[in-house]
């Protein structure tokens, strides 16, 4: 018996403690999701009602970015096919919920309780959870599994590829999915459904126009529940043999093999785990009111959006991916009508200051400049009647370029937000830091 294995057995905590520790994260996630669902409508004043919708989009993008980070950030495999997995999940879910709802209830309306209540106000109308909620949960998991299967299909041939070649394969996968979906035909109407068998219904997925008629189940509860689960999974993976193996592959494949990491297997695991959550994000996207579930929406453009989120936050950083998802989703919306510029700017400056140990670093200067520029532009738009909304995508692109120039490693680099504490401990103030050691 190996010594380490004996120790590992001895060090097992008592069952009650393990259960308590294991349940802490999931409990917080569920509570947060329920609270958001209950109070989301009163979170924003009437004039900011649009932000309620943005908040949902942020949640879906958080799932996408954090899951892509497992492949691109942890494992260092450059995948541009995330939208493909999203499409596989989204269409599987839409297929199941549309045609499944019809089989179950004879119509395609939502049959959920409070958890899937889209109507206003989101109060306890009727039941807390209904059969529709259970069905939607199953649909979400099925979407995840379908995408995970696609992850195996993409992961296996990519074992021997790396860098640009892998990127091309994943890009190709996304395009194949898009073209296949384009070649389907319009969704069947309620009258037509009984005429077609289940197998032949798979041919009616909406085609280039997109899938119509699926019930809208996506609410703050489901989005933030799965965003929380994704973050929790990414976090727990990172602090385990799995995550360390992923990181080792990113750092040096030959060395990873030399210490017993099966690089081929772990690459596939990374793809499968990442695809699973992309599929769930796709399913949530598919059932959100106001989204078009169309092949043109889920093409490589979407993949690049997610990559931007991961890169901005810092490759390999969970908190970075979350921040990236929030920024990339909210920034274009915010630029429509920038409000609270000074509040947001000040918050960003403070975060940047905290990270550079209260010295004026490049990031701090960047944040201050951005704030000033935005305020100036807002001033101009107010007094010279410049339509800021028309130029918002230019502003958005410019701020991305400026950010990447000044901070190519992303906001958090390879670190997490909580690593800041470790750096403060590591280097007392005044001591010169080693090059590249501080984020």
């Amino acid at each position, binding site marked *: *018996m*190996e*010594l*380490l*294995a004996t*120790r*590992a*057995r*001895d*060090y*097992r*905590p*008592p*069952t009650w403690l*393990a259960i308590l*520790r*294991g349940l802490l994260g999931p409990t917080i996630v569920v509570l947060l999701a329920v609270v958001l669902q209950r109070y989301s409508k009163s979170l924003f004043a009437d004039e900011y009602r649009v932000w309620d919708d943005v908040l949902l989009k942020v949640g879906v993008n958080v799932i996408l970015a954090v899951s892509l980070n497992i492949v691109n950030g942890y494992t260092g495999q450059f995948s541009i096919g995330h939208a493909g997995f999203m499409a596989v999940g989204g269409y599987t879910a839409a297929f199941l919920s549309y045609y499944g709802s019809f089989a179950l209830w004879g119509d395609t309306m939502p049959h959920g309780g409070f958890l899937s209540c889209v109507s206003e106000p989101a109060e306890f109308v009727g039941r807390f959870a209904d059969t529709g909620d259970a069905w939607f949960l199953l649909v979400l998991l099925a979407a995840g599994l379908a995408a995970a299967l696609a992850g195996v299909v993409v992961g296996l041939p990519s074992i021997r590829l790396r860098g640009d070649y892998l990127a091309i394969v994943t890009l190709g996968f996304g395009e194949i999915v898009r073209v296949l979906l384009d070649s389907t035909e319009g969704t069947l109407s309620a009258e037509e459904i009984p005429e077609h068998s289940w197998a032949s219904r798979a041919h009616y997925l909406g085609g280039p126009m997109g899938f119509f008629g699926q019930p809208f189940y996506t609410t703050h509860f489901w989005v933030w529940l799965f965003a929380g689960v994704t973050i929790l*999974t990414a976090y*727990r*993976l990172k*602090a*385990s*043999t*799995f995550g*360390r*193996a992923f*990181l*080792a592959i*990113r*750092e*040096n494949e*030959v*060395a*990873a*093999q*030399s*210490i*017993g*990491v*099966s*690089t081929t*297997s772990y690459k596939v*695991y990374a793809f499968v*785990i990442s695809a699973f959550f992309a599929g769930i994000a796709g399913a949530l996207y598919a059932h959100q009111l106001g989204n078009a579930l169309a092949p043109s929406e889920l093409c490589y453009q979407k993949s690049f959006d997610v990559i931007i989120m991961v890169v901005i936050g810092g490759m*390999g950083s969970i908190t970075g991916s979350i921040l990236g998802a929030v920024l990339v989703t909210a920034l274009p919306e915010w630029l429509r009508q920038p409000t609270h510029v000074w509040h947001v700017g000040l918050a960003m400056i403070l975060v940047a200051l905290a990270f550079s140990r209260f010295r004026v670093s490049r990031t701090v200067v960047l944040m201050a400049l951005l704030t000033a520029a935005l305020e100036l532009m807002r001033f101009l738009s107010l007094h010279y009647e410049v339509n800021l909304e028309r130029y918002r995508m230019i502003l958005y692109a410019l701020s991305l370029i400026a950010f990447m120039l000044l901070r190519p490693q992303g906001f958090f680099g*390879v670190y997490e937000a909580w690593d800041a504490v*470790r750096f403060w*401990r*590591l280097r007392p103030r005044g001591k010169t830091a*080693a*090059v*590249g*050691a501080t984020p």
Partner: protein
Amino acid sequence: MNASEDHIAAGAPLLDIRGLSLAFGGLKAVNEFSLALRPNALQGLIGPNGAGKTTVFNLITGVYRPDAGSILLAGRRLNGLKPHLIAEAGVARTFQNIRLFGDLSVFDNVCVACHLRTGRTPAAMTLAAPREDAPRHIAFRAARTGAHALLHMALTAHDLATVLLRTRRHLGEERAIRERALHLLSMFHLDHRKDELARNLPYGDQRRLEIARALATNPRVLLLDEPAAGMNTQEKRDLAGLIRRLRDEFRLTLLLIDHDVGLIMDICERITVLDYGQVIACGQPSEVQNDPKVIEAYLGEPMPHAE
């Protein structure tokens, strides 16, 4: 495992390499290389630049597949196995050009290597791993590969579940891994820098961290590729002490490449000399030192008028 322990007890070598050959195109990088390492041996492998020393390491650790010959670890055939399975079988190595996980902390560099010995994968799984060069009927190989893959998937799903649900097993393992990593780091006097990124360490520390990482896989045979490269005299002296200590404390069998012949002569009990991929001498340091072939390989042929 009993069979292999008996094998050792009978006085057989722990690592037995016979007739190992590898050609890159027309170039015979390694030709009929043989080496027998007794348990707890400390053997040196020297030779002029390009003699094929590192290629031998790459053959042993599965980076290259040999054209001919066999590598046996305690009677178990290693050639044809993938590098990570060879690591699991108990052969660890360091690299000539340091290959640390630069963007990971020093602590994580060691932690990542501890995963092999936590008692996760049943030994039978690794033993049954399909070899690339097994001369069997294709249907048999396919069936075996398939069965192995299925078992592997089931085990992985279970492992993933323990990680994601933070089961008792996972928590116990993580604590044991942390403890072992800290223990190894303190042995190498690296514990005070455990939170730094590996790439920010000074050169000598990086070399020692690489050895610590290799040791974390709990190997039976450790291959060190130029551990003293770029070190000054004092550091070399410390390294020599460290290598001796490692052998005694971890009951390791060591194979050592270095260009510093003085260091090799000082610490190794036996030395193998390679030139153009071929063993030209093997024996105790004093024997090798006076071997005319070795002198020729290092200094060139004696001039006719010198005779």
